[in-house]
């Protein structure tokens, strides 16, 4: 296990390095003076500009600048956001937490629902139920997620007025205690539903395929030949085997779910990374944009490693590879 982890981490290093270099190159695409890239459009005092020039070595050759950038990164210095008056790293981390508050429940719900749908569809392959579920899955994933968000807002906030159209908490008369929790949950429902719908589609598809494959396997026959009930065969034999590909898919789609969350946030004004992203575009707060790119790519790398670990733990065929030569009596 440790060896496995070490190998994966080792491979992650060059990848993160490439991401960092790419991120560095991004900033140099900004038109005009590189100082603009670092400070944005804000009127900054000349001493600060001079300091920036020196700190980032803007007059020095590119390779030196790259080196400085990487060194800064290693120390956790991603720059400073003038618009938000915070170091970029702190800013991103605080907003990321809020995005995760949205993403994690949504992904969990999507996984559970998706597996249920897959379990329902696969044994009835070819039937109307199956066609419906497959169709809905395809539809769910062909829809622009922000349009889905818009539809939800229009339906539930405008027409029916059941849900708040935006924000994470009610700003007027901010509630406290349990009411605060309830208020938060009430605001959470719609953006979470949006993300869940989108990802149920992915999970359901994989779950259905996995369960379908399991149904044709001989070990299911063996289990049934023992006289086990259909339910037991499903839950104790088919599901554990089918979950393996599902877990890996959910883990590997973390990157795209981050993108989805960002887009959803813009419709719902959910104050996470997505809203930060959009506002930074408007305010030309380039270090933040660069930071978000770096952060999200790295987050995907981490998610992949975690997924690999979970996969390794869950599938016994991977971690007991030494064929124990158990002697014949």
């Amino acid at each position, binding site marked *: 296990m440790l060896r496995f982890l070490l190998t994966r981490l080792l491979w992650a290093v060059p990848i993160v390095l490439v991401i960092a270099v790419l991120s560095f190159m991004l900033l140099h695409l900004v038109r005009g003076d590189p100082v603009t890239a670092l400070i944005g459009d804000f009127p900054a005092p000349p001493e600060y500009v001079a300091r920036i020039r020196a700190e980032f070595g803007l007059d020095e050759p590119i390779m030196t600048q790259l080196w400085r950038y990487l060194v800064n990164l290693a120390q956790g210095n991603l720059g400073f956001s003038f618009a938000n008056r915070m170091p970029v790293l702190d800013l991103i981390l605080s907003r990321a937490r809020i995005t995760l508050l949205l993403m994690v429940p949504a992904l969990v719900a999507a996984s559970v629902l998706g597996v249920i749908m897959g379990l329902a569809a696969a*044994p009835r392959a*070819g039937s109307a139920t199956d066609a419906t579920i497959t169709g809905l899955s395809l539809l769910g994933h062909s829809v622009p997620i922000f349009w889905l968000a818009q539809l939800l807002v229009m339906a539930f906030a405008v027409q029916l007025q059941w849900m708040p159209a935006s924000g994470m908490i009610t700003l007027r008369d901010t509630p406290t205690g349990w009411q605060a929790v309830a208020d938060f949950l009430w605001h959470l429902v719609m953006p979470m539903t949006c993300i869940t719908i989108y990802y149920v589609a992915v999970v359901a598809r994989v779950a259905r395929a996995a369960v379908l494959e399991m149904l044709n*396997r*001989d*070990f299911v*026959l*063996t*289990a*049934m*030949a*023992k*006289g*086990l*009930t*259909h339910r037991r065969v499903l839950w*104790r*034999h088919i599901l*554990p*085997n089918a979950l*393996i590909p599902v877990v890996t898919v959910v883990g590997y789609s973390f990157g795209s779910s981050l993108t989805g969350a960002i887009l959803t946030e813009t419709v719902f004004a959910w104050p996470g990374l997505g809203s930060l992203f959009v506002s930074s575009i408007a305010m030309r707060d380039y270090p933040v944009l660069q930071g978000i790119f770096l952060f999200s790519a790295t987050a995907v790398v981490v998610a992949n490693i975690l997924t690999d670990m979970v996969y390794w733990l*869950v*599938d*016994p*065929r991977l971690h*007991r590879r030494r*064929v*124990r030569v*158990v*002697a*014949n*009596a």
Partner: protein
Amino acid sequence: MSLLIVDRLRLVYDGPRGSTVAVQEATLAVGEGEAVGLVGESGSGKSSLARALLGLLPRNVGRIAGGTISIAGRDVTRLSRREWEKLRGQPMAMVFQDPLSSLNPVMRIGKQIGESVRRHDPGADLAKRIEELLGLVRLPAAVAGAYPHELSGGMRQRALLAIALGCRPAMLIADEPTTALDVTTQAEILALLRELRGKLGMALLLISHDLGVVADACDRVVIMYSGRTVEWGSTADTFVRPGHPYASALLAAGRVMRNEQGLFMTIEGEVGSGGGTGCPFAPRCPQVMPRCRSDMPPAFAAGGTGHEARCWLLEGKTA
């Protein structure tokens, strides 16, 4: 008392482009303590037959289209899924062909055996019984904690047997139990089966395309061709004096004999798709008569008690 009676069974698979007949007409019986072999090549329908015996035909695709199956005197031809769940395992348990894919890859062997025990032997001491069963199949107790991929092919086959035995079956159906194994392991498994039959008085229906295996392990044999049971009798009678040309050809090919021209004896042609009114072997039969193509022969005596074959050649002949 007959544990299993199959009478003129007909099995059909329904597909999007029409139905295929997997078994045209099969008749066989297995009595208590008996060992019966079911022989046939691929396409003969023997595996479909085996699955039907435990109600394991693929649900919306395979169905019984005629005939009956009786288990311990009870007609099970039209049982519901729930009723089948109650019936499986006892009195009949089944072991499948490929030991690797027949075991749940993410569940330990002990647990898989435990499931049989808990289902059919509710009061038993689980750990003790599992150990007992592993001992019966000559596997060390440590296997209980292992996963299927950690065992060799022969050991997996034994584990499958242990799982089946956990049901305390009066009869075991073994579908090609030795096909996936090498010759030495084959012999071991057959020896084990013999031992188990002796100890437990268990009946056996052994399905195989390998005549040697059947000859070794079974008292009686039933031969299938293209969805029909065409000859049956004691192993001795049938193999020494086969009544049906297909059986003779199988035996000859199996013995790797050469004919007068010095060529290996094979059976020309391929298994047909069944259907039609005549004998299905007619297109390949070296002794075919015009009548064979139009009329399916009934069973005629072929020498020896209980030895019969469905061939016009036997008409009018006495043993």
